[in-house]
């Protein structure tokens, strides 16, 4: 009996090695740049910031509550936003309400961007200093938040929302909240 258990003990390092390999193997699939989200399930933070088009108009949280909508963080300096923009246009055409958060940008190029590429946004919050960005925990544009009618953040995507991401992460949740199922072409 004693002999058998001491023999088995020789396999312990092998077993530990196998277990460690398995854990590390699972880690390979994870995207290390993706942060756990602190705000999902929380209310959208309060803010008081001007409108991009009209600097005298001060927008606040009340302007975005009451409806299911997307809040999209974008900027003209953000290259990935160029790739994302047509998808936002497609969603807006299908009746998705999208609020823009123009993040650490300048008014003139931002307005020009919307003229050139089309404007999918119901309106744009102009956050030149990035203060709402800090309250949201924004660390890179683009970011997209799905906010429900109570103003609770239900989902957050850091990075481009493309047909694949829409189908995987947003579509079902959006359907549950609104009963509608807008689609982005090219979804698998």
């Amino acid at each position, binding site marked *: 009996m004693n002999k058998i258990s001491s023999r088995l003990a020789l396999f312990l390092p092998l077993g530990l090695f196998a277990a460690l390999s398995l854990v590390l193997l699972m880690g390979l699939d994870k995207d*290390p*740049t993706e*942060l*756990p*989200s*602190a*705000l999902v399930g929380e209310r959208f933070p309060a803010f008081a910031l001007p409108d991009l088009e009209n600097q005298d108009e001060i927008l606040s949280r009340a302007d975005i509550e009451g409806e299911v909508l997307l809040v999209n963080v974008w900027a003209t300096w953000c290259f990935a936003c160029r790739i994302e923009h047509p998808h936002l246009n497609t969603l807006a055409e299908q009746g998705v309400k999208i609020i823009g958060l123009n993040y*650490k940008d300048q008014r003139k190029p931002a307005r020009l961007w919307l003229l050139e590429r089309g404007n999918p946004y119901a309106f744009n919050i102009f956050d030149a200093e*990035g203060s709402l*960005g*800090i*309250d*949201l*925990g*924004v*660390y*890179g544009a683009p970011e997209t938040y799905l906010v429900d009618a109570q103003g609770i953040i239900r989902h957050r995507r850091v990075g481009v929302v493309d047909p694949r991401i829409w189908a995987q992460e947003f579509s079902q949740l959006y359907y549950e909240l609104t009963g509608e199922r807008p689609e982005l072409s090219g979804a698998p």
Partner: protein
Amino acid sequence: MIRWGLLLLIFQANLLLASAEIVPFSDESLRPRYQQLIEELRCPKCQNQNLADSNSPISQDLREQVRRLLEEDLTDAEIKEYLKSRYSEFILYRPEVNQNTWLLWAAPVLFLIIGILVLYRLYFNSAASARAVTPEKNGLDSHNQQRLDELLQENRDQQ
């Protein structure tokens, strides 16, 4: 000559880096706390840099925010909580002990205990075998000679 020139360049580069950012404080006693905080907080955009080391725009903004919060008289714990509630635990370079991180914190102690156990066993086994060694003609000690005889006997029995 060129060598001296290069050396001079290196020193100048250091000077430039050192003077890259001047952070104004109303009270100088806040500065060491600021330094400590930005070294313990992680840049959310970078994989492995703290706010002090990183020059990414988000780090600059967060350093400024830390400075502002210090001026507003928040404690270090409150500032960390403020950032944690926005950027998640990722931002803390020294994570809190909770159900996700207890293993991380306990691991060094666990490994130390395992290491001591292994050393203990190795030491006593070698001491025991050192005592047991009595060289035989075929190079086997008496214990192994006995086992060899047993195994051979078993083999014969099976046939």
